[in-house]
């Protein structure tokens, strides 16, 4: 295996595997879920640091959790993610692109996300899985930060286009199993935040540190609008219009417990913003 450290986007060969902090890519390589002849360390290419309302996608979660100038929801999502060691390495852009923690997917079961014809979690062990959009694939999206950025109405700049963070994600379906819209060779460079009046991120964990969200709730007030997005409840970050939307959830037998949890956290988040 070869490791490249380019200094510009144009030097990145096509069909190569990109990594920044490596906290997601390296374990997936070790488990054989990813493979590559060429690894590209993009830390020399992707901007890092905060400038006004623009955040370099190479900024680490550890740097963001102590940034006073960013919205509370984003800072809190960073602080509650992973462990201090992981946050010191992992990048904002990489965090948005992490794969599900579904154990079937991680153990390489031939599930729908791997191109197969069934969701093993639906009939199998799914107590940590989705309560929304879980018919085709019951995986739960693990990114606290993605939910926060969706609620905040953040936009991404890649080497090819600009898009809302919400547009980065798509539900997998029969014809296309991917959960993001990122194209081959496309690289997230920056995140741009709108002016936010107030925001909050609340997270239920199964221990006090190093827990993916059982349910994460991000709420932001922007102008007169209240935006709510959830982590850990659907195969992608899940936006809801209001608390009533929880009535439309389709929990599996062992994910029903997430519904009262989500309801409590959404209520608390809304209450905390006044």
């Amino acid at each position, binding site marked *: 295996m070869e490791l490249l450290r380019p200094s510009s986007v144009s030097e990145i060969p096509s069909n190569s595997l990109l990594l920044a902090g490596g906290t997601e890519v390296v374990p997936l390589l070790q488990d054989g879920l990813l493979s590559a002849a060429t690894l590209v360390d993009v830390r020399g290419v992707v901007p890092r640091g905060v400038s006004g309302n623009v955040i370099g996608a190479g900024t680490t979660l550890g740097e963001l959790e102590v940034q006073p100038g960013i919205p509370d929801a984003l800072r809190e999502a960073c602080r509650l993610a992973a462990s201090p060691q992981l946050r010191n390495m992992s990048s904002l852009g990489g965090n948005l692109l992490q794969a599900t923690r579904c154990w079937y997917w991680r153990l390489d079961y031939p599930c729908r996300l791997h191109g197969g014809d069934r969701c093993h979690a639906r009939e199998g062990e799914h107590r940590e899985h989705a309560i929304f959009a879980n018919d085709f694939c019951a995986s739960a999206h693990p990114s606290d930060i993605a939910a926060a950025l969706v609620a905040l109405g953040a936009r991404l700049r890649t080497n090819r286009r600009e898009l809302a963070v919400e547009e980065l994600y798509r539900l997998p379906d029969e014809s296309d199993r991917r959960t993001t819209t990122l194209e081959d060779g496309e690289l997230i460079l920056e995140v741009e935040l709108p002016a936010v009046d107030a925001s909050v991120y609340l997270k239920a964990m199964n221990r006090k*540190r190093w827990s993916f969200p059982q349910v994460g709730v991000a709420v932001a007030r922007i102008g007169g609008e209240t935006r709510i997005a959830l982590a850990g409840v659907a195969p992608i970050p899940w936006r809801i219009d209001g608390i009533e939307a929880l009535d439309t959830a389709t929990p599996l037998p062992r994910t029903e417990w997430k519904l009262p*949890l989500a309801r409590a956290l959404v209520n608390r988040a809304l209450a905390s913003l006044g």
Partner: protein
Amino acid sequence: MARLIRTEKEVEGRYEEVWLVVEEDPLEQWPAGPREIVGRPATRKSGPARVRGEVRFTADLKLPGMLQAVVLRSPYAHARVKTIDLAPALALPGVRAAIGPGEASGLEEEIGYSGAAVAAVAADTFRQARAAIEAIEIEWEELEIVLDADEAVRREQFTAPPRQYERGDVDKALAEADVVVEATYRTQSVLHNSMETHQAICEWTGDILNVYISTQFIWGVRDAVAETLEMPPDKVRVVCEFMGGGFGSKNGPDEYTFVAAELAKRTGRPVRCALTRREESTAAGNRNATIQRLRAGARSDGTIVALDGEFTNAVGWSGWNASTEGPMKMLYDCENVRTVTYGAKINTPPMKAFRAPGFVEGTFGLECLVDELAAKLDMDPLELRRRNYAATNEGTPISSKELEECYRRAEPHWERRHEVRSRSDAVWKRGVGMASQIWYGGGGPPSYAWVRIGSDGRATVITAMQDIGTGTRTAMAQIAAEELRLPLDKVDVVLGDSARGPYASISAGSSTLPSMGPAVRAAAADAREQVEDIAEQRGMPRDAPVHEVVDLLEDAQILGKGARGPNPTGMSVLTFGVHVVEVAVDVETGEVVVDRVAAIHDVGRIVNPLGASSQVEGGVIQGIGHTLSEDRLLDPETGRVLTSTLDSYRMPTIADVPEIVCEFVDKPDTHLTNLGSKGLGEPPIVPIAAAIANAIRDATGADIYELPISREEMLRALERAKEKERRGAPAAV
């Protein structure tokens, strides 16, 4: 003088009758209380070297020319190898040897769980070996699998015949009881997750097999390897200088050792076989799940008149039927007790001893049931426990029992419950719970130690035991230093090599200190006596400082030897304790936070209060994981372990650790040994789950029947409690 006796030997609650040569234990016990060195806190002898990364674990060893072995494991939970072709593996670069079913102990043709070992390859690098096992061609015949323990019991599929016990007349007592409570408790399967994975390096030098291994029992590995390979035991040398955790899962050699030995033989080179973290989660043992269907009857004055339990251990494909019924038989003075314990043979990874196997699970069920009984009797849970105090162990005298003193010391912690409850608000409900602890921990013979004193006035304790990370070196040095009247820093401890010291006991069943400590003290006393004799010949007082007595010895040495004496005959040796736990429960989100644990234990004399507190803290933290967050999950279709990484199998982090208050009765067991110490490795994990569950009930009124108390279980229990309130049903089921 050596004496041959027929005696009962107990390890992890399992008894066997053995012939033993024992030496008498002529030393008087020290008086109770702290001595000069024993009974006073001492920092770890190996601490500085550990934090500097200088100590060598098995995982650190790199022998010249060493090959790496990787094991091929079954993807199926029950299957037979129809054909296997190792040739494609052997053709790959770096591969030196490959072995299949029957070619090393533990490589099987018919496998009974997903992850069982089938074949193995040795190659120059780990990566090459891993690629090679993927190239092995196998044709499998899949067989029917049973994963459900109740289903196995229905089919009478057992690992051993069901174990039945009865005293008195339970049916009659239940019929006559004023109050009866009944409940089914379930505990999950949890993993040891030792920091150092199971591993061995085997190297042949002539006809000697050197086994470097992460183990809790150097001599047990030596004997098992010699027996399996049909070698004289003294041709097997076992080395374990430092080891990174075992918790009961490293008592024997297992397949990785035999794989390394066979591949080393075939290649003529040292071979390492080390489990990966994923293999550690699958094939290194577990605390088996249990189902406990329990009933208790009491008179209205709180006298428990009947205890009835049907216990099912989901043992797995192999393993033993742990004593989950033990606490029900032993903890309370109850005339009528009946238990039956099934060991369900199912297609899941085999159980292995895990820190008080059986008693951790059984105490959760029993001590939750006793609190249900207290609620139904409207009696204080501490008072109910005191009223049913057992003075004997099923009629057998107990060598020392200070549980009453533990209860007395628990009072101020228990009193806090009024103040704790008063801090509840609409969301966070707070409460206090307790549970008692009973377990073994007396150790036993044989175990031997030598003490060597040189003209430099320094002493070395030599014994071929292991330090499993519990501070064994420090405690042994304290005992020797005390007896020799030497400063602690003048005493070294050399251990960890069967070729360089006498036989020493297993470090399991809370037995290291009670087994080895008295032998070390006897050896030190022997050496001390010789020093005193020399002092007298030099015209010095017998208690002259050692360095002044031996300073002219030059190359001559004082050699003392000591042996562990017999256990008291006709007596049960047991440990006791009580935990009082404070919790807070978020009744909207199901979050459970353990705020404070008061752990009070009676384990005889405390040699190192600092080390003892560390043991208690470790047990409590591991117990909190068992109670709240750890859960080894299987795919219900394939039987494969799904939680095989440390992000999906959730042990507590340091942020989850509550305030832990440790107290010890610290009263020597006058019948046991010259030391009067019992073991402490296991006791602190025994009562914590029940104490947490009882605190949750105190805080919220919700009854807990299942571990772990995840948010899902907590929210379900809160729903049940609301439902019960709506129906106006009585407090107990």
